[in-house]
């Protein structure tokens, strides 16, 4: 029987994640409902659907990049395909962050120690907190399922409640699985950053395994090896299969149990992979505030760069597969993302939309890191000395901006190198342009985050992530539902041209940059005048 302390831990953990889970569930549901409704109203006849299926249904390249195209002659098949890569990736990243927040972030802040000092033990407390991951996976499943079921009541769409729930579960299982991965990573890493890094590697491996599984029929069994594959295996709108869901539950419970065992065996406040506690001084970067910021954030920024470089390499490598021997009618599929021009240009236009999403997450991460300096009280060590507040924030924003620029250019170089090696006719200069093109929208995210930091430091990091992820979802929804195109104006990607498939408007680009700089300026001025957050 859980003790009152353990019940309190479970309740508190659930409360911490609930708002995020509701946002994720509503976004997933809205995005899928929009995809289903659009498809049903655009391709009204069986003939038009059959034509799409005939031309693109068997296309392997597209399946590798964006998910299964086999079922796109049905509303359900298209709905799964349309949201697959975006929604599962968002779900996985959010779940990892949620899991490490509960089980490592709290410990980093010293609050976990207070909880464990209650009538419980570290292992049992971990089990209680991990329960919250299960709860939020159910919340995501039910909310997504409900919204899709409402959309499914339309006879044109025609989803049964059971199918809708299965679709919700196919996304909820991603949250459950990677939340559990985050729980185990929290036991291994000695800090939340290390735990996030470890868990993100698992997400990346799972992502690549799913891609591999779709490269050849002989490799399809690989879908069973990754949560992203399980999502596809559920096949919610065909013959819903509950086996993959059961597998996800079993694996997650096993991972949860592993986390509980590991938590019982390690010292509270340390990770199993803890480093030595004493070492000779390394004074690099400790001579200035910008040096300190670079030293503290360097490992994280390198990880982001590595991630975005890997994304570039991956999409560069499969570029040949996607763009060669593709029937002309394929254009209509890519058209749905608003891409135009030659097939190669269209492909890279969509790839750099993905790069834009990742690049915009770097400012969100850095705003969170800057806010943490303040809420932890460490910022006072700097601001009680002769450093102006405006300078401190200005330097942090500049560091984030430079890192974003470097990451975008790195993505361009890696994409080009991998594509050129496969003989895809695309120039380095073109892709460098595509890389630069994603920077203004990312800087807009930085400006928005800076204002949030100047107003509400406690929540700045989290809200900035939400702004970026919601922008992705809004962009998806707005691009599909004609009446909802206005939604796109709320997105930080509103002015983003899908270069090289769309021409870049200089006026738009300059406008976005000016807006970003203006927001940053307002933020720095406001930050210099307000009370610091008490530690």
């Amino acid at each position, binding site marked *: 029987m859980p003790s009152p302390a353990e019940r309190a831990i479970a309740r508190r953990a659930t409360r911490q994640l609930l708002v995020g889970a509701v946002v994720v569930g509503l976004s997933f549901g809205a995005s899928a409902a929009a995809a289903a409704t659009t498809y049903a109203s655009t391709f009204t006849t069986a003939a038009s659907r059959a034509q799409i299926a005939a031309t693109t249904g068997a296309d392997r390249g597209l399946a590798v990049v964006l998910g299964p195209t086999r079922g796109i002659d049905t509303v359900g098949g298209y709905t799964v395909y349309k949201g697959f890569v975006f929604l599962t990736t968002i779900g996985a990243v959010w779940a990892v962050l949620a899991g490490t927040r509960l089980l490592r972030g709290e410990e980093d802040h010293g609050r976990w120690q207070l909880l464990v000092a209650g009538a419980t033990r570290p292992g049992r407390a971990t089990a209680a907190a991990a329960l919250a991951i299960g709860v939020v996976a159910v919340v995501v499943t039910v909310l997504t399922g409900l919204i899709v079921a409402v959309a499914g009541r339309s006879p044109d769409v025609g989803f049964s409640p059971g199918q809708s729930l299965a679709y919700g579960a196919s996304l909820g299982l991603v949250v459950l699985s990677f939340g559990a991965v985050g729980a185990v990573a929290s036991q291994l890493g000695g800090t939340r950053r290390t735990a996030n890094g470890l868990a993100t590697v698992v997400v990346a491996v799972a992502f690549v395994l799913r891609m591999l599984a779709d490269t050849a029929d002989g490799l399809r069994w690989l879908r069973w090896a990754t949560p992203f594959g399980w999502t596809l295996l559920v096949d919610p709108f065909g013959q819903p299969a509950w086996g993959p869901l059961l597998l996800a539950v079993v694996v997650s419970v096993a991972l949860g149990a592993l986390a509980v065992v590991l938590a019982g065996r390690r010292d509270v406040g340390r990770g199993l992979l803890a480093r030595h506690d004493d070492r000779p001084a390394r004074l690099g970067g400790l001579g200035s505030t910008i040096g300190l910021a670079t030293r503290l954030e360097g490992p994280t920024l390198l990880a982001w760069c590595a991630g975005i470089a890997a994304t570039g390499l991956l999409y560069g490598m499969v570029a040949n597969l996607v763009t060669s021997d593709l029937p002309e009618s394929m254009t209509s599929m890519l058209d749905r993302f608003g891409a135009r021009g030659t097939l190669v240009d269209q492909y890279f236009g969509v790839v750099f939309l993905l790069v834009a999403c990742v690049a915009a997450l770097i400012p969100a991460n850095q705003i969170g890191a800057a806010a943490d300096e303040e809420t932890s009280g460490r910022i006072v060590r700097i601001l009680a000395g002769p*450093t102006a507040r405006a300078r401190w924030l200005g330097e942090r924003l500049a560091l984030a901006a430079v890192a974003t620029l470097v990451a975008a250019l790195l993505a361009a170089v890696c994409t080009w190198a991998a594509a050129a090696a496969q003989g895809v006719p695309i120039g380095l200069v073109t892709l460098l342009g595509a890389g630069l093109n994603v920077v203004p929208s990312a800087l807009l995210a930085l400006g928005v985050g800076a204002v949030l930091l100047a107003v509400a430091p406690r929540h700045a990091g989290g809200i900035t992530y939400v702004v970026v992820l919601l922008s992705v979802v809004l962009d998806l929804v707005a691009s599909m539902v004609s009446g909802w195109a206005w939604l796109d104006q709320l997105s930080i990607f509103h002015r983003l041209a899908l270069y090289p498939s769309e021409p870049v408007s200089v006026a738009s680009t300059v406008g976005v940059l000016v807006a970003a700089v203006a927001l940053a300026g307002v933020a720095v001025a406001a930050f210099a005048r307000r009370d610091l957050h008490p530690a």
Partner: protein
Amino acid sequence: MGVAVRTEGLTKRYGSTVALDHLDLEIEAGEVFGYLGPNGAGKSTTIALLLGLIRPTSGSAAIFGLDVARDAVALHRRLAYVPSESALWPSLTGEEAMHLLAELHGTVDEAYRDELVERFHLDPRKRIRAYSHGNRQKVLLVAAFASRADLLLLDEPTTGLDPLMEQVFRSCVHDAKARGQTVLLSSHILSEVEAVCDRVGMLRAARLIEVGRLGDLQGIGGQRVRAELHGAPPRLDGLAGVSDVTISGNVMECEVTGPIGPLLEALAPAGIEHLVTRTPSLEELFVARYGDGA
């Protein structure tokens, strides 16, 4: 000696909560000023205002003639701050943290820093993460004292230090005073304030209720007298300066403000066998001032 810290009507409100109410305070350059008060009286708020970390609702504060908000950067070169909650970067070692703080501050007496590391028994090779609270506190104390700043703002700086380290801290404050540095020491440890401070200010419910030399403050409270008498104690009603009289058997206790002569004359007929007088400790003063809980 000039004025190091001067506040005029310094007030901080959070909504309807008054954290600091019209503080008028002057601290002379070169003095060690003790800042006393129960939890939540406004001690840390005062120091946060002096550091420019929060903005006053009204009133003003200046240090060495410089405005604490407008001239913060220039001013902060001349002061060092030690809080009771030592938030530091957990991945840095003690030595790295001290190096960083010295670099950011701009001045450091390296020989003195090395000496302080010895005196505080600090192992600078360890990561902040692995330090106890007391050891993290030592890192900040060493950095602050080694900066040789003109003004030290110390906000309950010895929380977590053991009694031996407390002695080292006191000797550091004495050294700082001997060098002409000014110290504002907010503290709960009254023996600490008694040992190192020249003057004391007492805060209660956001207001400064008492400022003065320690001796003067103790004079306000008068002295405690305990007398064992040969015969039954006489009635002391109406005797000037005598209050709080308790009698049990042949033992009389009371409080006397002003000259003690009249009391002795009154007691003499009963035959004084044993007499003890004692000035109140700061602790008794503190309890007398705050004991009613308000």
